């Protein structure tokens, strides 16, 4: 993971600031940095979104393909995750440098998103036991400036919202042979219900307090952080502790409560934004990667 070196004096300055609910860039402890979201940025995917959070930038593309349902759940589709830590984001990722982080991130993403409570996996089934949609979620880190989990989760939710799966119907002949037929209208698509898709809130223990959306400097001052995935109702679906230090039960409880509060507040404006963007349709001015 990308790190920065912080001197002892800087550390004290950051710690003292947080203690007084005032962070280096002027935010409060539960404030996010400026966030930008744009969907439908990669035309050859079925759904895509780009999220920038401070200087952190991630791109998520979703490709839908037809596969075979998992034996245990014949009437559900599934998601596959791959996180590419490109050396664009930080020189440390060069070569195989980003591999470990990528695996760690994608493992977490499987836990958070690939279950029927988060995504309506049943709607991805085409014919039980035979064909289902597999959503390949590719995450590309463009720039790292802390708080990757939150940025990625927001981008995934936006990309899922944006995903258009072509409609298919199964035609069966007399012999029982099944044939998948594709609608020839490119606008004839299925959309996913993303209401229950959670967002991840990472809380970082800095000193005696905890903050959300840490910058790299703040991160360098913390010993441990807690990853919480929260749905729009405030339900916690997953928690995970990362970092070398330990957390006492009391602060875990406090952090969870804070995470719920922040996560619940994150969903409503996000959905509003996505719907707004969608309603613009083709008239929307695309920003893309150069804007």
């Amino acid at each position, binding site marked *: 993971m990308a790190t920065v070196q912080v001197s002892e004096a800087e550390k004290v300055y950051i710690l003292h600031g947080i203690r007084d609910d005032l962070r280096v860039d002027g935010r409060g402890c539960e404030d996010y940095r400026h966030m930008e979201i744009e969907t439908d940025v990669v035309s050859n995917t079925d759904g895509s979104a780009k999220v920038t959070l401070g200087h952190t930038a991630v791109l998520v593309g979703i490709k839908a393909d037809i596969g075979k349902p998992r034996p245990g759940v014949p009437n559900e589709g599934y998601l596959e995750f791959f996180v590419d830590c490109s050396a664009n984001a930080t020189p440390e990722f060069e070569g195989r440098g980003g591999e470990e982080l990528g695996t760690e991130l994608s493992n977490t993403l499987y836990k958070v998103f690939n279950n029927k409570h988060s995504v309506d996996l049943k709607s991805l089934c085409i014919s039980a036991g035979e064909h289902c949609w597999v959503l390949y979620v590719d995450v590309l880190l463009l720039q790292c400036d802390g708080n990757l989990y939150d940025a990625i989760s927001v981008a995934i939710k936006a990309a899922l919202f944006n995903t258009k799966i072509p409609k*298919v119907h199964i*035609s069966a002949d007399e012999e029982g*042979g099944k044939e998948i037929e*594709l609608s020839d209208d490119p606008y004839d698509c299925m959309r996913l219900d993303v209401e229950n898709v959670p967002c991840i809130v990472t809380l970082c223990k800095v000193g005696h307090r905890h903050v959300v959306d840490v910058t790299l400097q703040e991160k360098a001052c913390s010993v441990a952080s807690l990853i919480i995935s929260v749905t729009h109702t405030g339900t916690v679906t997953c928690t995970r502790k990362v970092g070398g230090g330990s957390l006492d039960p009391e602060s875990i409880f406090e952090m969870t409560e804070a995470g719920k509060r922040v996560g619940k507040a994150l969903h409503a404006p996000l959905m509003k934004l996505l719907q707004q963007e969608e309603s613009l349709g083709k008239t929307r001015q695309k920003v893309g990667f150069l804007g």
Partner: protein
Amino acid sequence: MLKSKTFMKKTRSGGVMKIVREHYLRDDIWCGSEICTECKQESPVLQRDPSIESNLCSYPHYVIPDTNVVLHQIDVLEDPVIRNVIILQTVLQEVRHRSAPVYKRLKDIIHEQEKHFYTFTNEHHRETFIEREPGESANDRNDRAIRVAAKWYGQHLEKAESEADALKVVLLTNDLGNKQKAEESSLLVYRCEEYIKSLIGNPELVDRLALSNDDKHDITSSKVLFPEHLPLSRIQAGIKSGTFLQGTFRASRDNYLEATVFVQGEGEDSTEVLIQGLQNLNRAVYQDVVAVQLYPRNQWLAPSSVMLQDEGAAKDDNEEDKEEEDEEKSVTEAARKPTGKVVGIIKRNWRPFCGMLNLSQIKESTRHLFTPADRRIPRIRIETRQAATLAGQRIMVAIDGWPKHSRYPNGHFVRSLGNAGDKETEQMVLLLEHDVPHQAFSQAVLSSLPKMPWAITPEDMVRREDLRHLSVCSVDPPGCTDIDDALHCRELDNGNVEVGVHIADVSHFIRPCNAMDKEAANRGTTVYLCGKRIDMVPELLSSNLCSLRSNVERLAFSCIWEMNHKAEIIKTRALTLSSLEVRFHIDSETHDPIDLQTKELMETNSMVEEFMLLANISVAQKIYDEFPDCAMLRKHPAPPPSNYDILLKAAKSKDVEIHTDSAKALADSLDMARVDGFPYFNTLLRILATRCMMQAVYFCSGMDTDFHHYGLASAIYTHFTSPIRRYADIIVHRLLAVAIEADSTYPDLMDKQKQSALSTNLNYRHKMSQYAQRASVAFHTQLFFKSRGILNEEGFVLFVRKNAIIVLIPKFGLEGTVFFDAKHKATPKLVFDEEGPTLKVEQHTFHIFDMVKVTISLDASNIQHQKIRMSLIEPVISGVSVPAPVVEPQAKKPKLDR
């Protein structure tokens, strides 16, 4: 400006792919009109004054047809009257997608400068490109694109010229919905028929209109005659599951109610499905690709052996010839064949057909039946106002469709070929019906010719051996201009003899993949008709630069052997077969045949032939050794033993034994076969043997394992000696040139798939050219008998059939059928014995080889199918034979006749 086009595609593995293509829009696409001052175009295509007069549009205008108009009315668009047409890119793409032949024709029109057809790339024009909208089908989107482009043109031209008589654009569409929408956006729009009919002074153009769907209703009764065709999706599902079979529809030449569908199975096994009855034939036309459903085994039928011709006149749509359909139900089990019915058409293979018009009984009627020259094609109903002029002419007609309530398909007049019976016309019919490419060579082809005067250059000499010091001679009939082979022979110092075969080096002039090469590959062979030659390569090559004429320097490919005086090259005996070749003595002024004789073979001919065979075999071995995967060879499969049945039976009747174990045994026993007092017996037997043979074919050595040439008794064979008139020889020359490092290779030459496809075409062209040749001989024979009136000649029975004998007249090399069951006469008592085979007519029994006397005359009652009629004179059978008519002595000096 950049747009992207997105569409979904199913991949072969069953996945779904999203494909995104970048689509660039430009603002430098010009309108192509002469009046436009805005567009910076160099040579505008559309004229300033498009002079076409129409009742509907009194103003000067350009025409924009939509896709369906182009697809269905291409015959109209080809007419020289129709000019100044804008073909939109949308239309061009759709046409290309839906019909390759129409696309080719459209491209040809566009390239013709006289036609002033302009292609407007509206899909890349910034102002006329549109994106598909949600809920819009691909067709609707294209229709909209056409309307948008038409609208743009209207506004653009208005801007260009401020004068009152500004040019307008007229959109032609037959789609009512599209027309309505176009009218709403205030475009000038007409239905194609409407517009064509409004054109002043071109009434014959209306005949060329293809009938559109709504026109068809008033032509026929509403009674449904045929079962509905299944949609393609169901057909495909059925073929996949095995309930239907896919095959090529082959109508019977002799019986219009019968056809077979040839189903290509896995590998070698292929089946033929018999289809009988109009309902089961279900509107399939010869050569269509159809889906058939088999009947259960107990409903299988045997092919009928009667000849039936559709004599129905135009009006008797509804009265079906019932008795014809349910005849011969009592067939033996063995004769039954898989029988089925056509359930759907996978691909129509309609082309314009040659034929003649049957005038309707009603004088004023504009609807007539057209009878194609090919009996396998059903009659076609057409609409024309020039019936009176077209009667007695050979015309071409294209099929437009075959609705399920119509007894005959509907079509439209394409063009007239000339008066029936004229030599020119008949020749044209012959060429068209046998699919012989006979147009003059295009400019592109001619531009690949070497510049004249041509001379051998020093570069040519570098890789060649100079044989100009040798005396080389050719043996060819007088008047032959395409001489592709020559020989030389000289004594060597060591006492041996050197013999060389020199073949014109055509591959030096025809370079791979240029226009001339492609044209030659397509033509495949030169076609020789009586009095006409349709060249495979332009005349400059065939009769001059490549022709090994005397006293000129020519490039050649030579094959040289050294042999001792006894010519001891191991000789494999080739099978000498026989078929009579006829030669006409043609009157030099009228070009009518005045005499007819069978070709005589000279000793020198067979010597040349012997050497050519030798050259071909040597070359075949050489190229096969060098390129085992892609050598172009020729094989002649051994016929299955059952083919010989008739030959063996015939020989046995004269107590002669024929061995058919191998080509050599056959050749030897044919040589031995003699009957005292019957000198012609041997020739007759050889003619019979020829009929037993299979067709020799070209093939690519990498695609086959059986190379044997049965007729020549050679393990390997190819064609090397006539590159001027056969394309296979050119390929062989190229292979040989690469093998001896005289020339470089090119990818297609080494690609066995491409070679194989090429051989298929060559085989097809070769077969067709032979048919055309035969048909040409038949036509000239008819001309000859027309001028000679009735003749009495001696002949031999060649075959015995159930109701006829086939007689060969040696004097003319003419074969004819003597029928014993004439329509208007009582049929005599006929007993057919298959074992003999013999036919007993009343008291007299006919055997093969019997000598008979017949009278020969021309039967011109059916002008389209004129034929030679033979009637029996001797032996005299009462009620069957005819008295010998008095033959008028031929005028001694034919010139007095004129």
